[in-house]
């Protein structure tokens, strides 16, 4: 079954096109990474899939249903880049994660034993169960990100959509992420993630989609890191004398023309 299908998607902000004729698919059980430079349109692509950005042309299906008519949002767990800034009032880790149950429970029912169990299980999965009663603002950046993953997992989704989950996150939290996502994928879950660099997530990725200048520039296996971006601890000895081959630049991709900045 196809979890996400984008056909000829077009997105424009105020007359300026950000995505032009983008088509891609995510099959159930697949782990797909969307890669690209800052401003390439990769975040816009997932935000469009989630319905946060309106489509100017083309079609999007979610689990076989046109996005416009899709109602089973509990099947999708969204992990945004960072904790919303709009919180003037303290909230505990447990309270934030509990909002992940709303899609399943509906807004008129009070949380029951099943909801509490799901919140605990999600927090255990990301290794933050001991911080359940702490205000989220007292957590480190990586721990806040793990809180957001737990919030998405608490809804027991079939598809996890993550927008740059590892951006600016310490190494320990990155390893924790990789563990959480690996276990989710092993349970048969589908993952669509936007990344600037894959880091410890790389072995998990089944398919990579590279977005460049609002178009899909590459789709297939995770491309070999190009230039001086090969894995950690590599020796960069050759002086780039050889002619430039059209390789895909994975991480960091800042050298791509950032025309959409």
């Amino acid at each position, binding site marked *: 079954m196809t979890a996400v299908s984008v056909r000829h998607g077009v997105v424009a902000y105020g007359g300026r096109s950000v995505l032009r004729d983008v088509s891609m698919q995510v099959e159930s059980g697949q782990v797909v990474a969307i890669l690209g430079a800052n401003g390439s349109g990769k975040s816009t692509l997932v935000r469009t899939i989630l319905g946060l950005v309106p489509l100017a042309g083309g079609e999007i299906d979610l689990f076989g249903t046109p996005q416009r008519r899709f109602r089973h949002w509990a099947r999708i767990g969204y992990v945004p880049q960072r904790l*919303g800034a709009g919180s003037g009032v303290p909230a505990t880790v447990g309270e934030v994660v509990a909002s992940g149950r*709303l899609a399943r429970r509906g807004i008129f029912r009070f949380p029951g034993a099943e909801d509490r169990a799901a919140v605990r299980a999600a927090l255990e999965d990301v290794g933050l169960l001991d911080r359940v009663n702490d205000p989220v603002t007292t957590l480190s950046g990586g721990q806040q990100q793990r809180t957001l993953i737990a919030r998405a997992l608490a809804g027991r989704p079939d598809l996890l959509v993550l927008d740059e989950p590892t951006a600016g996150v310490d190494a320990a939290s990155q390893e924790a992420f990789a563990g959480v996502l690996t276990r989710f994928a092993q349970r048969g879950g589908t993952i669509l993630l936007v990344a600037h660099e894959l880091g410890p997530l790389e072995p998990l990725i089944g398919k990579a989609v590279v977005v460049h200048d609002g178009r899909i520039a590459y789709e297939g296996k995770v491309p070999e890191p190009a230039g001086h971006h090969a894995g950690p601890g590599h020796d960069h000895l050759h002086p780039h004398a050889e002619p430039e081959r059209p390789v895909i630049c994975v991480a960091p991709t800042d050298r791509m023309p950032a025309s959409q900045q």
Partner: protein
Amino acid sequence: MSLFQYDFMLRALAGALIIGLAAPALGIYLVQRRLSLIGDGIGHVALTGVGVGLLVQQSPVLTAVIVSVVGAIGVELVRERGRTSGDLALALLFYGGIAGGVVLVGLSDSTSGNLVQYLFGSLITTTRGDLIVILVLGVAVLVAMLALRPALFAVCNDEEYAKVSGLPVRTLNLLLAVMTAVTVTIAMRTVGLLLVSALMVVPVAAAQQVTRGFRTTMAAAMLIGVVAAAAGVTVSGEVDTPPGATIVILAIAAFLAISVGSALWRTLRRHIPAAQHAEPPDVVIEAGAR
């Protein structure tokens, strides 16, 4: 308590108590959204409603509810569209509201004393009919804010996430706007349109000095609100001060006391030998992690 032998004092107390509970229960969502002053703005708009009511000789509370609900929905639609022009649009709406109110009240036959009554509250003149309106609407606000807490928390905490969760974000936002307008209008009799926002925001600000979670902040804010309201009515009856302003001053006193108290407590704790208070480390480095 000889004061409460009088019916009007009992009515004043009942009205103040319900506002003391309902205003912070709603205000916490506004504070969470960083819209602390929105109540103030809607209060300005409600004044036009009062003016309409006085002019056409209908119940000013009723017309204020209608006009401020329309205003609140307008503000919410502007907020939804974007921010830059929204700021100016809100300013126009607020000042238009207060100017319209003053002009309409001037056109009506009522004296200027009447205007002051709505601007700064006049609990003592609360009639039985007013009290029934305050009770019914106040309980409606309270029930909505408590029953929809998880959903409203989700929307105010992270609107995009709430959208992706399939929550009716727009409906919830409009509900919050309408409830804000309703609270402003029923609190108009107690604390007045110019002080209404204080009862929504100050108890929340006071509570969050010492609380760690949203639910406890809400409970503590409602407690502070209701205690300030009860104490305010009592004090104002004893020493003959305007009740609205007295309630607000007591709430601000609570804020100051809690702030100073919690700062002192933290300082004291720091000076006690820290051994038994050793906090768990932020990051536990497990074997094998780099």
